């Protein structure tokens, strides 16, 4: 019984991993760029939720939206001010830019918020619910379901809408897209906004159910890498499957081996993937 609870809990958390990982995979597939600061975007989403609750006293819908908007804006700003200029330059500049940004965001958060773990005051999603004998915090359940919905929505946006085709066109062939009247710069800024926004919402969802500190950025960043590596770079659907799998593996490892070892399992999985199947489940290499 406990095992089933662990599994379900893992899948729900994995859904949130899927959501923020799809943001990372989007940037990778679109611009061949790895955002080392992506975990920090999630972390900032969590703190945005906290600030909204503490200052404005909103509910999950309010701070969820606030996190989405704030991080969307941040994503666009980061693209316009920084990424746009380094993306056509040497690899060193590209990697340093997002890596440096990660440090900047992470340690500024440490400076402002201190290293203490915090959690949201109880929201309308407090309490547990009993489903077929297993007890789940309502917040976790709602967070997980919302995450799955949003991830699928993102996938549909990319594959079925005109906007999505524009984004994919730029990824495919920038010059050709320009000839068709699509503005690559705008599309890429939009992609960064979407990516960061997804991370932000994921952060807000996580905040409803789990405590955190500025250190989670680093952990989530690596988790996002592992998820994207497993699911395939560039595939949102792949991130969905991979996120669920990773969440599951993480939860079961923690249950069987202990909390400390779950990280080793997950990172070990990543290294194994690099050796055996770098293109992941559904991606192009």
């Amino acid at each position, binding site marked *: 019984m406990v095992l089933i609870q662990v599994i379900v809990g893992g899948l729900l958390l994995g859904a949130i991993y899927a959501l923020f990982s799809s943001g990372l995979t989007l940037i*990778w597939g679109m611009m*061949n*760029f*790895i955002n*080392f600061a992506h975990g920090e975007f999630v972390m900032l989403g969590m703190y945005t939720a906290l600030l909204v609750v503490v200052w404005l006293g909103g509910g999950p819908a309010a701070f969820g939206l606030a996190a989405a908007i704030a991080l969307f804006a941040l994503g666009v700003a980061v693209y316009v001010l*920084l990424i746009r*200029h*380094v993306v056509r*330059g*040497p*690899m*060193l*500049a*590209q*990697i*340093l*830019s997002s*890596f*440096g*940004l*990660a*440090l*900047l*965001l*992470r*340690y*500024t958060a*440490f*400076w402002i918020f201190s290293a203490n773990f915090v959690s949201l005051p109880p929201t309308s999603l407090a309490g547990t619910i009993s489903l077929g004998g297993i007890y789940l915090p309502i917040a976790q359940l709602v967070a997980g379901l919302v995450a799955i919905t949003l991830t699928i929505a993102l996938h549909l946006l990319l594959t079925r809408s005109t906007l999505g085709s524009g984004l994919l066109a730029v990824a495919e062939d920038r010059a050709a897209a320009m000839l068709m009247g699509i503005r690559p710069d705008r599309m890429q800024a939009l992609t960064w906004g979407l990516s960061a926004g997804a991370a932000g919402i994921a952060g807000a969802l996580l905040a409803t159910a789990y405590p955190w500190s500025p250190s989670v950025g*680093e952990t989530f960043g*690596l988790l996002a*890498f*592992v998820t994207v*590596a497993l699911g395939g770079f560039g595939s949102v659907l792949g991130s969905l499957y991979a996120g669920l799998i990773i969440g599951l593996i993480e939860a079961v490892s923690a249950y069987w081996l202990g909390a*400390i*070892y779950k*990280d*080793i399992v997950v*990172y*070990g999985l*990543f*290294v194994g993937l*690099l*050796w055996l199947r*770098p293109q992941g489940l559904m991606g192009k*290499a």
Partner: protein
Amino acid sequence: MKKYLAQPASAQRVSVCLLAAALVLYPLAFSGAFYRDIGVTFLLAAISASAWNIVGGYAGQVSVGHSMFFGLGAYTPLLFYTLWGWPPLAGIPVGILLSVGLAIVIGLPTFRLSGHYFSMATIAVAELIRIFVGTWALVGGAIGLQGPAMSRGWWDLTFRGDLPYYYIFLAVLAFVLIVTFALERRRFGYYLRAIKSSERAARSLGVPVRRVKLQALALSAAFTSAAGSLYGVKTGFIDPDSGFGILVSVQMVIFAALGGAGTLFGPLVGALILVPLQTAANTWFGGSGSGLTFILYGGIIVLIARFEPGGLFDLWHRFAPRVWRRVHAA
């Protein structure tokens, strides 16, 4: 004399000689413990950054997890001592061997793929090792390991006072720089720079790209491991964070990048600027100083990436011609 100095090659030679002399004489001129400590810290930083520079600066393969080699080098001497009472000196070559092995294990699969895979792998593996070591009681777990409290002989590398360490570190730094200089001038150095510029073009000219990258990484790992060993024996203590922590990796990168990644003296210059700055920050702000330091580091890295990826070296070359012209016109 003026004419001699006006030629760039001779001016360079003179500068290097002056630098060498300054480094050799420094601890004799500044004999206080505080100054010697900064000197030793600077040398260690310069060695690590120069080691990173070989694969990250010259070959353009950006490792942000080089602490894995540093940590291996720091742990092995102290481990040999803790487990079997062996002199730490014996552990140093083992650390180097392990690091080279690890370098090959990481490089083989990732160098087939794009540069980002390699960078991601280095972060993940460094973290993996850090967490794993923290759980392994044999190597000290979260508490770490200690070295000899009392010296049983020179092979324990446990000296009182900083002076012996200073000159040992200086010798190692000189060795690393000489090796880098030698490689820079030969085919290997040209191949490294070609790979950094365009792997595709390099391949089309017969450059064995994957092999060269592996060699660069292995060499870099060996030197980084040596730096870690020096740190371990000097401090007499190591734990997962001081050995394998991300801050160790970041420091190597930023020292090299600030001074000029891919240049011989770039890492030295970066260390020369940032080590005193970091020490000052720690002294003024105390514990919170380290938090501030890393906000600063993050900011500096972003600025370097955005405006001058070639670091101060490139910046100097952009402005120096104008300065030279004005000096000569006067």
